[in-house]
């Protein structure tokens, strides 16, 4: 069995999910089909509101709707949620702790749309925003199950969302859960934290390394904030040679920083190699090209593990591309032992 490829899971799933939730309304700023809610609009025209290409107004208006008992699900590109209208996000939504759901598409290098469309510092900014819950999806199962997670939070939620074609890395029966990491493989040599699209690369890297007798404890993160699952620190404590983080984001303020903070807060004294964008913007090109150019791929993860363990496996790009991937259920967590 290999991983399944799923096409646009959010489209129908969000329609089905919202059927019995009349408080859920959608706001769109001229990116309705681009944010995969065109069919949603046609299914629930009375619960869909176009506010035009005006994101500042959209976020403040969402705050007003939330005050009246509605649950606005803002759908647009991530950059138009946290960059352009940040003051509105902070003052009209986050400060009053309102249940607005900010569904941000096109994380990092997933779009060839260039610097204007690539959200590369969203997690850093929203992690620093009080009252925000910050979620990220890595596959179809998370895109589907993130709806229930966000719905269950009483305050504002940011979802770093995937669209279009994506793998199903995790079994359907293992939905995303708030502030709960997935331990995808066990190993005492290195502990690897990954999130979003880097998790697929991480799974390839971990499998290839295992065939070279290097055993990595792989922890997948879908809740960036809160980041309190005890499994996080336990997985760090068992890291023999050190810790690696891998994210489709700048290494400042995102997953790598969150991991570093935990290591420091708990006095664990582990080496950490952070894979991600290194204080740079990106430009418009294919995901494969950008992943290679900016070293956001399985090969970069292998090199980091080799550096920490002082080994040289000879694993090359060709080997990584041919690693058979299987849907990865959770292995036993430390707390379930």
């Amino acid at each position, binding site marked *: 069995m290999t991983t399944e490829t799923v096409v646009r899971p959010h489209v129908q799933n969000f329609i089905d999910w919202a059927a019995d939730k009349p408080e859920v309304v959608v706001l769109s700023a001229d990116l309705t089909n681009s944010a995969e809610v065109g069919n949603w609009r046609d299914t629930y025209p009375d619960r869909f*509101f*176009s*506010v*035009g290409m*005006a994101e*500042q*107004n959209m*976020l*403040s*208006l*969402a*705050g*007003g*709707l*939330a*005050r*009246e*008992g*509605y649950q*606005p699900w803002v759908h647009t590109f991530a950059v138009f949620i946290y960059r352009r209208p940040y*003051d*509105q996000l902070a*003052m*009209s939504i986050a*400060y*009053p*702790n309102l249940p607005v759901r900010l569904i941000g598409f096109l994380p990092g290098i997933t779009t060839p749309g260039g610097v204007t469309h690539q959200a590369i510092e969203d997690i850093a900014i929203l992690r620093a925003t*009080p*009252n925000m819950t910050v979620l990220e999806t890595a596959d179809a199962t998370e895109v589907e199950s993130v709806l229930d997670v966000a719905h269950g939070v*009483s*305050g504002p939620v940011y979802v770093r969302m995937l669209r279009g074609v994506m793998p199903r890395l995790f079994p359907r029966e293992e939905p995303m859960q708030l502030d709960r990491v997935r331990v995808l493989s066990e190993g005492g040599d290195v502990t690897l934290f990954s999130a979003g699209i880097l998790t697929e690369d991480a799974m390839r890297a971990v499998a290839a390394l295992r065939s070279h007798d290097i055993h990595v404890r792989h922890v997948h993160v879908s809740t960036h904030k809160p980041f309190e699952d005890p499994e996080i620190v336990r997985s760090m404590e068992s890291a023999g040679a050190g810790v690696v983080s891998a994210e489709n984001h700048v290494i400042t303020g995102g997953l790598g920083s969150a991991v570093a903070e935990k290591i420091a807060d708990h006095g664990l004294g582990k080496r950490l190699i952070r894979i991600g964008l290194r204080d740079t913007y990106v430009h418009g090109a294919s995901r494969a090209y950008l992943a290679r150019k900016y070293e956001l791929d399985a090969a970069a993860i292998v090199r980091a593990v080799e550096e920490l363990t002082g080994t040289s496996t000879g694993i090359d790009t060709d080997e990584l591309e041919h690693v058979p991937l299987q849907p990865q259920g959770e292995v036993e967590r430390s707390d379930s032992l």
Partner: protein
Amino acid sequence: MTAPATDTAWVERTEAVATGIRRRVLKHVLDKGEGYMSQACSSAEWLAMLYTRVLRLAPVEAPLVTGEFPGVPGKDNPEYHTGAAVHGPPGPDYDRLVFSPAHYALSLYSVLIEVGRLDPATLDDYNRDGSTVEMIGAEHSPGFEVTSGSLAQALSQAAGIALGRKLKGEQGKVWVALSDGELEEGQTWEAVATAGFLGLDNLRVVIDANGQQCDGLIDTVSSLEPMRERFLAFGASCDEVDGHDLLALDEAMGRPSDKPHVVIARTDPVRGVPLLAERAPKIHTLRLGNDEVERARYQAAYEAMLP
């Protein structure tokens, strides 16, 4: 032609409230040495109109006595309440007021005291550490329902509230108090366009067009004219009136409309305290220094307002 006496019996009371606003703010400036005086001068009549004539609000049992700051909103602070408590319990037929120019807080607190919704001792807590009676009001401050001090966000938030109330079939209106300077923010026009597009006829706006902003005269900072035509072009209905003329305000604020309705109240930032004109154009705040002669003149102005 003389209007029937019953039609204008309210005027005397509304005038008294307007005078009371200026008097309380001037007293505060005399006591504390500084305050937002010109805003009270310009806004006193339309504020008095809102609270004595326009807003349909539930009665309150007694003037609200404010407590200590309850902490910011958050999941660990379920006790947080907004300053809308002074407006009485909300209901589908009651109006709401979203107050945008948060630096007018001193005037808003004063009108609430004048109409018996806020304890007169509240102003003792103004700008005191640990109190909710903040200098720039936030949503825990009396009279405030949203956090509006980052100007131009309140109109959009009010549009969201108005949309929600329409969806629920509520009949009450959502009033918004704006200042003219914040019309320079692009978000204001995004909000007006959206409110018109969404048909929010339950949204009503009064603008204190006093021609002043922090840097001085608006005409020296930017361009906002022709203001009425701009609102009409963006999809609202609009009246432009002398903001100190109670009868004109009454007609404009009460005008039925099938669109978002905007009342531009053209106001005078030194109305009722003409002494203030000597400091023009620097009248955004009034700070009394060590000039005893000037202080005595303001004291005399205050005493002239006493009933």
